[in-house]
């Protein structure tokens, strides 16, 4: 079935550790890719997006993601995490030709806990 998967359900890191959260999708054709973050008690916020162009995308708060078309992946990275990065991270895909322009399909989320 077409879907968005995230490699880890829960990740625990110490401050200053490097972060990589995996995301894979199963849609062919043109895709628009997103990472959203949900801090405790807050709304979903857009971290970064990829529509076209440079496959290495930089977002807010030092996050970046790399689109690798051949691997159907869009992994999120941060070189050095902080306690304030503790949150739920959602990979999301919009696949206009296979689903629609309107529908964003979310992965199940990865809960990140950063220990001071």
């Amino acid at each position: 079935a077409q879907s968005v998967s995230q490699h880890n359900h829960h990740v625990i890191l110490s401050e200053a550790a490097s972060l990589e959260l995996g995301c894979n999708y199963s849609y062919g054709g043109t895709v628009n890719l997103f990472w959203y973050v949900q801090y405790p008690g807050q709304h979903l916020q857009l971290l970064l997006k990829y529509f076209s162009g440079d496959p290495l995308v930089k977002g807010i708060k030092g996050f970046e993601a790399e689109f690798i078309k051949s691997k159907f992946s869009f992994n999120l990275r941060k070189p050095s995490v902080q306690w304030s990065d503790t949150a739920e991270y959602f990979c999301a895909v919009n696949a206009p030709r296979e689903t629609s322009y309107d529908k964003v399909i979310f992965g199940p989320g990865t809960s990140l806990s950063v220990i001071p």
Partner: protein
Amino acid sequence: EPEVTQTPSHQVTQMGQEVILRCVPISNHLYFYWYRQILGQKVEFLVSFYNNEISEKSEIFDDQFSVERPDGSNFTLKIRSTKLEDSAMYFCASSLDRVNQPQHFGDGTRLSIL
């Protein structure tokens, strides 16, 4: 930075009752969406709305659900006769464009059906 706002933050309703969830999208946005997240499950698309009509709806969005934009600023989701399985977090989103602009999400309304 402008935000999508949703009210109430938490709604508790008896099964079978009607409930209306309210959203104020970002003011210059033209496309509006509702998603829901049942506890422990993925965020799921419900419906999109543009130019005062439904653009697309998922199989979840059955006849019990309706959306409207009654006054040009609010965007509402109505569930006519709630069921226990409607208990979820409901997220409203809006976007300036449906092709090249991301969707911006509200805080969500937690709906609890008793």
